[in-house]
């Protein structure tokens, strides 16, 4: 099936989609690294001075909080990507779902 075309070059829109995805991935990975290696390891000794309902905060981040944060990060990524797919016209229909791409 030939996809519908808009007047502006679709390739330019694809480029914009990919740049937006890269930007989103970099931002989310920065948060991931800060939560995991910053708050839960490097800053953990300092954060342990703070108590979160009886549990030292650094310890809680490392064994509970970071895991919750990872789940939320993927949720944000999946949801934002769904929206971007539609906005840039690269979302899948049953006819345009890949079942194996060959280099041709």
């Amino acid at each position: 099936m030939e996809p519908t075309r808009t007047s502006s070059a679709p390739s330019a829109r694809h480029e914009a989609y990919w740049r937006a995805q890269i930007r989103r991935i970099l931002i989310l990975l920065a948060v991931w690294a800060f939560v995991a290696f910053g708050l839960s390891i490097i800053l953990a000794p300092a954060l342990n001075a703070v108590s979160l309902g009886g549990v030292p905060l650094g310890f809680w981040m490392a064994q509970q909080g970071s895991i919750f944060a990872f789940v939320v990060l993927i949720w944000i990524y999946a949801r934002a990507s769904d929206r971007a797919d539609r906005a840039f016209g690269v979302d899948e229909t049953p006819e345009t779902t890949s079942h194996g791409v060959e280099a041709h």
Partner: protein
Amino acid sequence: MGIQEWTWVTVGLTFSAYLYIGYRSRVATTAGFYVAGQGVGSIANGAATAADWMSAASFIGMAGLIAFQGFDGSVYLMGWTGGYVLLALLLAPFLRKFGQYTVPDFVASRYDSTLARVVAAVAAIFVSFTYVAGQMKGVGVAFSRFLGVELWMGVVIGMVIVSFFSTIGGMKGITYTQVAQYAVLILAYTIPAVAIAWALFGNPIPQLALGSAVPALNQLQADLGLDPYTSPFVNTDMLNVIAITLCLMAGTAGLPHVIVRFYTARDVRSARWSAFWALLFIALLYTTAPAIAIFVKTDILRQFAENGAAGFVNLSWVQNWAQTGLIDTQAILADGTVNAILDKAVMDRDIMVLATPEIAGLPPFVVALVAAGGLAAALSTASGLLLVISSSLAHDLYGKILHPEASDERKLFVGRLMIFFAVIVAGLFGIRPPGFVAEVVAFAFGLAAASFFPIIVLGIFWKRANKYGAVTGMIVGLTFTFVMIALMKANVVLGTAEPLMDDFLGIGAQGIGVVGMLLNFALTIGISLVTPPPPEAVQDLVEQIRYPRILSDAEIEEHHHLHDPVAA
């Protein structure tokens, strides 16, 4: 009924269910056999991924390890969950768009090289065998303790079950069996945790009971003259905590049996949501594990403080486990201090989760449920790994290189044969286990992080990466990591009296994969830059996998004009 009778009931029921599901999901094509026909919805795929992922090490070994390492045990919790962020953001949707059967398929197409396929297939087999040994040992331990059969007999029973549903159902049988196994293992893991949290702290949610449990344990450790449980870097320094965490994360994202789970998703969108559901399901267990670790450590230390060494060895759960040889009561009596039970040679970490219900005095059917859960965790991971081994041998080496002309029927037959062969080898590994569960598994991560992760990420995000870089990067990363682990664990791997090396730049065996990974990245980038760029067809493939829907040839063509205005 006692523990043993109840265990026969839970194991009998769950195993029958797996066999039934496996039979219902039998397949007749290679697409069904390797990627479940690419028709699995995101929630089911997420649950299957979670079961595939959570191994005997996660279920049986992890809480015990954390209980004895305290804060430093966080490396496992963060490493084995944080890797999903890398998977979801950097790999899963793109590999689903690529959409073939195996990880070596991607490596071969992206790097336009049969050599790359061979190296990737061999690496996949190597990594998966390292990992599967621990699963089979887990099956044997659970059977020998709870059903009173010999360890080898337990392994054989596990082999028969796995070979049945994976041979006839392939990935489809494995996927739907794993969904059932997830349900069994999560119930088995959380029910005792909820019961203990309720009994000791009056709060049914283990994660929330930490508020009372943590201060109590820190106090108890202080009374016994130990460091606080929550203090960082007591057993492992900060550099190694960072290295191990990162190594487990990148390894998670590079393990072929995890990556291939995203090939089974319905479409790209579903691959992203599969990653979300998978991590949510995993997080249920992974946030419960530290609570179990704290409950069990508190119980053990309290029982020791109250009874002294002589009274402690007479407790019925200690006696039960002493019979399996996993607790050394003589050593506890000889030493007489709390340090004896904190020594892993005296009290094996692997028994902690399986012993939790007994330690807390929960009824026999809960103990039996935990046994069934441990078996579900071990079998589900083993089956996923066996499929990777089979697909590497039958699809990549036989079907793509040796006999590409073979019919689909013939290829399917070889696939079934190879999975059967892999089960036998894995079973032999399980009967002669090469070390304690979680440690063996941890090495598979280093190997995966150093071989697959860098070249797949670069393959998706950098069109310039070529086969010369990738093949060198993969071989050097894998070899470096393997040699380092062998030297640092020479006492286990090579049988020398002492390790031949303690660390490399301060990084020990568990985190060394990070150095291998950086080497791989550096070599792939460096060598690609000084050798010719990949052919245009490969660059088009990279362009194609970045977008969820299939772009037409005309659309791909336009991208060339965009980058090369002269041609326009």
